[in-house]
C-alpha cells in the first residue's frame, strides 16, 4: 500500500499544533490514497503542494491565540509611543539636539564614505551587461618582470587570440595616440583612443549622433574619420546638431567627424572611454605582425554563459600554443583575463575598505556616547518609568517605549546626516575626481539611502538597547522611594563599560591614522634618486607628421633646451621621454657578444631617452664615466643596479648593447654609470634603468626638465613662451614642478591619511567628551560621599586622586583592549602602508600615551569640581 511522502508528513507533523495534527494529516492521507489509485506521482505532488501550503500557514491553534493577542499591542502601541516620544524629546530640546548632532555626524560621515564606495565599487559600469566585459593582458615572464602581474599586449598575439578564442562574443584592440589639434582656438594636444575594428560592438555602445566606425575603416588610407565625445562636441562644436560630416585638423590632416558618443560613454576611470576623440587604429600589415613589442590594450566581451575563469584557462591554452609556435617572441609570455570593473578599481578597494571600517568605528563611538546620554536620561526618568510599571506596564512595554525614543532620535540624526553627506559630497566629488576612479559618479542613490536608513536603525538599536534594558530592570520600590538619593550612583558599571569601548575604538582609529601619516611621511622622504626641488617640467609632443625625420625631431629639443638654458635663473635643462615615478618603457636588453635569449630569459631594464643636460637638471649623480654630450651619436648610461644586473662585478664602460625592440643592429656604447632612480611607484625599489642618447631614434622625447636658481614656477611663462616661439602650433602642456609631480603620485595616500586623521580626531573628541560627562555624572552622584570624606579630613588632593582613579581605570582598560584590537586589525592596514609596520610599536606607544593624556585632561575638570565640594552644603541637603 502507498504511503504519503514521509518527509512531508514528518515536517507537517512537527509544524501542526496537536489540536489539528490528527485531522489534517488524516485528511491528507485519505485524499492521497484516493488519488494514488489513479496516479501515484501525481498524488505525491499533490501531497507536497498541500503540505507546503500548510507548512507556510498552518491552521491556528486556539492555544496560541493569547500569544497573537499579545503581539497586537506592539503595532497598536507604536503610534502612541511615537507621539509620546516626540513630546518627551520636545520637552528636552538641548538633550535631543545634542544626541541628534552626534548621530548626524556619525551617520553623515558613514553615508558620505559609503556613497563613494557605492559609486566606485558597487555600482555597475554604464555599459550593456558590464559584468561580461573583461580586459585581456599578457602575463610577462616573472624572472625578467618580477612582480608585474599583467602587461600590455603585442598586436600579432592579439590577432592570433582573436582568431583562436571561442569563449568571447568579441574582442578589440586599442591604444592611445596623441594628436595636435589645430585651427580654431590655437594648437592643443588631444589624446585619442585609437581603436581596432569591433571596439564599439564589444562595448555595445551606440552613438548619440552619426555612427561608430565601420570595419573597413580600420585600415591605413581609409582611417581619416573621428568620433568625438559629448564634452568635446559641446566645447568644440557648440553642440552643433550638424556636426557629422564636418572635419577636424589632427596633426595637420583632415579627419571627418562620423559620430558623437553620449555623455554616459565617458567613463573617466577607463582611458579608452575617457578620451575626447576616437580614431580607427588602422595598423599597417607590418604593424599587425609585430609580436615582441607589447604596447596595445585589449577589451573583450565574454559569451553570456562563460565565466572569467573559463576564459582565462582558454587564453592560457592559446598562449601555450603561441609560445611553442613563436618561441623567439613569446617564450614565457602567458595571458590572463581580468574583469574590467576589477581593473578599474583594483587599487583603491583596500583603501576604501579601510576608510569604511574607520568611519564605522566613528559611528560606534558616537553610539557609545549617545548610549551614555540616553542612559543618564533613562535614569533621571526612573520615577516616571516606575510609575508606568506600577500602573501595569510590563518590562517589554517600558523597553519598547525607550527604544522607540532612541530610534526616533537616530532616524532624525540619520536625516540630518544624509543632508550633511549631500552637502559635503558635492564639494568632495570634485576634490576626489583625480584620486579615485569613477569619483565623478559619486551621488546619493537608492542604495545610499537604504544604507543611511539601515545605519540609523542599527544606531538607534545599539545606542538605545543598553539603557532601555537597564531602565526596564529598575527596582520599583527603590525608585518610588522619596528622595531617590542614590539615583545618580546607578549604572556606574554600565558607564565604565561605555568608556572602555570608546577608548578602545578611538585607539584603533588613532593607530590607523598614525600609521597612515607615518607611511605618507616615509613616502615623501623616500630618496627617489634625484633632487626634485627647484625643478620645472613642461611637456611638448612635436607631431611626427611635421617633425618626420630623427634630425628634425631631435633638433627641436636640442634648440629648445639651449634656448631655455639662456633664460635668467636657469641652471641646467634637458629633455626626457618619461619623467621618473611616472613609469614608462621597459625593454629587454642584449649585450654585444652574447646571444639573444628567449624573452623569458632575457633581462629587461627601464629605458629612457634623454638629451644632454637631463642628468644635471635632475641632479642624478654620475658614479663613473661621463654624462652624455651634444657631440655623442649613439651612447648609453646605465644605472648602478642595471650595471650589476647585466655585468655583475665587471666594468660596463666601453661595452656595447642593443635594445632588440628598437633595433637589433644599432649598438650603443655604455659611457657611464649613474645613480638609481625610482622610475615607477615610490614604494617599490628602483628598477634597473638605462638612459640612451640617440641621434637615430629620438622619437618619444617629450618632457623638458629645467633646474632653476629661482622658484621654478616663476620662470614657467618664459619657458613656455620660448617653446611656443619655436613653433606656434606646438602645444605646451603639464607645466608643473617636479615636486608637484611627486605629490601627485601620493594623492591617494594623502587622501586616506587626511580622512583617517579626521575620523581619529572626531573619535578622540567624542571619547574625551564621553569620559568627561560620565565622570561628571559619577562625581555628582558621589558628592555626598566626597563631602563626608572631606568633613572627615580628606584633603583636596585625595579627592582629586579618587576621581582620577575612577576615570582612568576604565580608560586604561580601554587602551589595553584597543592595543589588542589594533594589533588584530593590522593585517588590513598593512596593505595600504609603506615604510612603516601596521604594528609599529613606536606609533602604538605614542598613540596610547596621547590618548591617556587626553583622557587625563578630561578627568581633571570633574576632579577639580569634586575637590571643591563643600561638605556643609552637601550634608545640609540631607
Amino acid at each position, binding site marked *: 500500500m502507498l504511503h504519503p511522502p514521509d518527509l512531508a508528513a514528518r515536517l507537517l507533523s512537527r509544524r501542526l499544533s496537536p489540536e*489539528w495534527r*490528527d*485531522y*489534517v*494529516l*488524516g*485528511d*491528507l*492521507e*485519505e*485524499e492521497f*490514497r484516493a488519488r494514488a489509485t489513479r496516479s501515484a506521482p501525481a498524488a505525491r505532488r499533490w501531497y507536497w*503542494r*498541500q503540505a507546503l*501550503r*500548510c507548512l507556510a*500557514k*498552518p*491552521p*491556528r491553534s*486556539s492555544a496560541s491565540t493569547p500569544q497573537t493577542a499579545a503581539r497586537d499591542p506592539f503595532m497598536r502601541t507604536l503610534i502612541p509611543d511615537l507621539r509620546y516620544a516626540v513630546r518627551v524629546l520636545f520637552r528636552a530640546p538641548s538633550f535631543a539636539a545634542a544626541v541628534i548632532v552626534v548621530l548626524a555626524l556619525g551617520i553623515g560621515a558613514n553615508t558620505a564614505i559609503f556613497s563613494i564606495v557605492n559609486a566606485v565599487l558597487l555600482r555597475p559600469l554604464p555599459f550593456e551587461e558590464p559584468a561580461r566585459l573583461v580586459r585581456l593582458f599578457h602575463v610577462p615572464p616573472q624572472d625578467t618582470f618580477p612582480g608585474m602581474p599583467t602587461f600590455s599586449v603585442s598586436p600579432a598575439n592579439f590577432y592570433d587570440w582573436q582568431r583562436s578564442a571561442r569563449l568571447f562574443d568579441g574582442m578589440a584592440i586599442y591604444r592611445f595616440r596623441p594628436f595636435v589639434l589645430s585651427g580654431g582656438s590655437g594648437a592643443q594636444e588631444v589624446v585619442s583612443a585609437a581603436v581596432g575594428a569591433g571596439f564599439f560592438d564589444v562595448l555595445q555602445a551606440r552613438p548619440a549622433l552619426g555612427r561608430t566606425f565601420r570595419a573597413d575603416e580600420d585600415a591605413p588610407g581609409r582611417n581619416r574619420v573621428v568620433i568625438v565625445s559629448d564634452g568635446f562636441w559641446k566645447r568644440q562644436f557648440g553642440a552643433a546638431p550638424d556636426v557629422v560630416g564636418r572635419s577636424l585638423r589632427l596633426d595637420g590632416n583632415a579627419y571627418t567627424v562620423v559620430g558623437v558618443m553620449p555623455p554616459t560613454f565617458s567613463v573617466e576611470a577607463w582611458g579608452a572611454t575617457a578620451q575626447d576623440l576616437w580614431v580607427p587604429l588602422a595598423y599597417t600589415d607590418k604593424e599587425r605582425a609585430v609580436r615582441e613589442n607589447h604596447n596595445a590594450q585589449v577589451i573583450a566581451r565574454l559569451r553570456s554563459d562563460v565565466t572569467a575563469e573559463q576564459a582565462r584557462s582558454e587564453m592560457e591554452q592559446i598562449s601555450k600554443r603561441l609560445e611553442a609556435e613563436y618561441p623567439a617572441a613569446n617564450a614565457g609570455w602567458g595571458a590572463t583575463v581580468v574583469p574590467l570593473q576589477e581593473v578599474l578599481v583594483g587599487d583603491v578597494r583596500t583603501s576604501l575598505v579601510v576608510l569604511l571600517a574607520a568611519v564605522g568605528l566613528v559611528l560606534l563611538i558616537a553610539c557609545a556616547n549617545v548610549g551614555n546620554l540616553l542612559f543618564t536620561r533613562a535614569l533621571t526618568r526612573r520615577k516616571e518609568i516606575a510609575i508606568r510599571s506600577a500602573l501595569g506596564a510590563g518590562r517589554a512595554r517600558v523597553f519598547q517605549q525607550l527604544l522607540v525614543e532612541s530610534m526616533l532620535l537616530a532616524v532624525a540624526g540619520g536625516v540630518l546626516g544624509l543632508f550633511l553627506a549631500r552637502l559635503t559630497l558635492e564639494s568632495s566629488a570634485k576634490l576626489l575626481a583625480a584620486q579615485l576612479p569613477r569619483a565623478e559618479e559619486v551621488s546619493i542613490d537608492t542604495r545610499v539611502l537604504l544604507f543611511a536608513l539601515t545605519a540609523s536603525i542599527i544606531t538607534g538599536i545599539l545606542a538605545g538597547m543598553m539603557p532601555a534594558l537597564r531602565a526596564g530592570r529598575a527596582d520599583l520600590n527603590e525608585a518610588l522611594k522619596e528622595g531617590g538619593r542614590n539615583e545618580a550612583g546607578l549604572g556606574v558599571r554600565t558607564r565604565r563599560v561605555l568608556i572602555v569601548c570608546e577608548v578602545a575604538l578611538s585607539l584603533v582609529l588613532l593607530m590607523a591614522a598614525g600609521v597612515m601619516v607615518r607611511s605618507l611621511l616615509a613616502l615623501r622622504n623616500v630618496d627617489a634618486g634625484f633632487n626634485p626641488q627647484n625643478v620645472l617640467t613642461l611637456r611638448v609632443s612635436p607631431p611626427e607628421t611635421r617633425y618626420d625625420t630623427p634630425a628634425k625631431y631631435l633638433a627641436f629639443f636640442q634648440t629648445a633646451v639651449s634656448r631655455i638654458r639662456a633664460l635668467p635663473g636657469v641652471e641646467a635643462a634637458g629633455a626626457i621621454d618619461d619623467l621618473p615615478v611616472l613609469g614608462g618603457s621597459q625593454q629587454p636588453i642584449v649585450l654585444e657578444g652574447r646571444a639573444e635569449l628567449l624573452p623569458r630569459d632575457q633581462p629587461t631594464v627601464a629605458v629612457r631617452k634623454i638629451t644632454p643636460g637631463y642628468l644635471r637638471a635632475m641632479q642624478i649623480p654620475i658614479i663613473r664615466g661621463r654624462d652624455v654630450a651634444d657631440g655623442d651619436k649613439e651612447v648609453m648610461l646605465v644605472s648602478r643596479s642595471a650595471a650589476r644586473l647585466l655585468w655583475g662585478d665587471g666594468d660596463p664602460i666601453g661595452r656595447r648593447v642593443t635594445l632588440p625592440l628598437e633595433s637589433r643592429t644599432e649598438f650603443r656604447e655604455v659611457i657611464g654609470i649613474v645613480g638609481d632612480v625610482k622610475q615607477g611607484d615610490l614604494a617599490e625599489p628602483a628598477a634597473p634603468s638605462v638612459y640612451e642618447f640617440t641621434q637615430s631614434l629620438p622619437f618619444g622625447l617629450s618632457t623638458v626638465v629645467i633646474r632653476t636658481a629661482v622658484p621654478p614656477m616663476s620662470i614657467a611663462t618664459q619657458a613656455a613662451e620660448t617653446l611656443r616661439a619655436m613653433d606656434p602650433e606646438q602645444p605646451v602642456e603639464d607645466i608643473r614642478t617636479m615636486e608637484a609631480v611627486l605629490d601627485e603620485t601620493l594623492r591617494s595616500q594623502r587622501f586616506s591619511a587626511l580622512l583617517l586623521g579626521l575620523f581619529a580626531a572626531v573619535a578622540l573628541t567624542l571619547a574625551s567628551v564621553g569620559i568627561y560627562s560620565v565622570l561628571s555624572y559619577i562625581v555628582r552622584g558621589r558628592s555626598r560621599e566626597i563631602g563626608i570624606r572631606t568633613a572627615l579630613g580628606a584633603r583636596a588632593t585625595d579627592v582629586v586622586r579618587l576621581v582620577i582613579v575612577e576615570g582612568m581605570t576604565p580608560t586604561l582598560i580601554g587602551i589595553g583592549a584597543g592595543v589588542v584590537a589594533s594589533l588584530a586589525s593590522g593585517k588590513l592596514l598593512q596593505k595600504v602602508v609603506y615604510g612603516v609596520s601596521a604594528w609599529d610599536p613606536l606609533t602604538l606607544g605614542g598613540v596610547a600615551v596621547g590618548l591617556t593624556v587626553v583622557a587625563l585632561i578630561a578627568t581633571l575638570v570633574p576632579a577639580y569640581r569634586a575637590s571643591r565640594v563643600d561638605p556643609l552644603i552637601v550634608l545640609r541637603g540631607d
Partner: protein
Amino acid sequence: MWFKGQPPILGDFEQLVLLGVLRLKNDAYGAAIRQEIHERSGRDVSINAVYTTLDRLETKGLLHSWSGEPTPQRGGRRRKFYALRPSGLAAIRQAYHAFTSMTDGLEGRLGTK
C-alpha cells in the same frame, strides 16, 4: 454582540465552506469539504485554508464540531466533523438572498442564461 440581531456578513470563501458543510450533511469533514469545493467551484484550495475557515466559523458560532472514530484509510487517525448551527444556516441564507436579489434581471448581461 454584533451578530445577535443580524446574521454576520460572510466572506466569499466562508460561503463556499458553509455550503460545502451543508451539502455533505452528516459527512462534512476537512478533506470532504475540500474536495466538494474543488469539484464544484474548481478552486483547488489547501487543507489549511479549509480548517482555518472552519475554525473561524465555529468561533463565530455558525458551526459546531465533533470528533469521529479513527479509520485505517487515514492511518488510524480521527476525522473532525462539522455541522451547521441555525445561525450558520441563517447566515448562508442571507448570503444567498443577497446574491440572488443583486443578480436578479442581470442574467442576460452576465451571460448566465
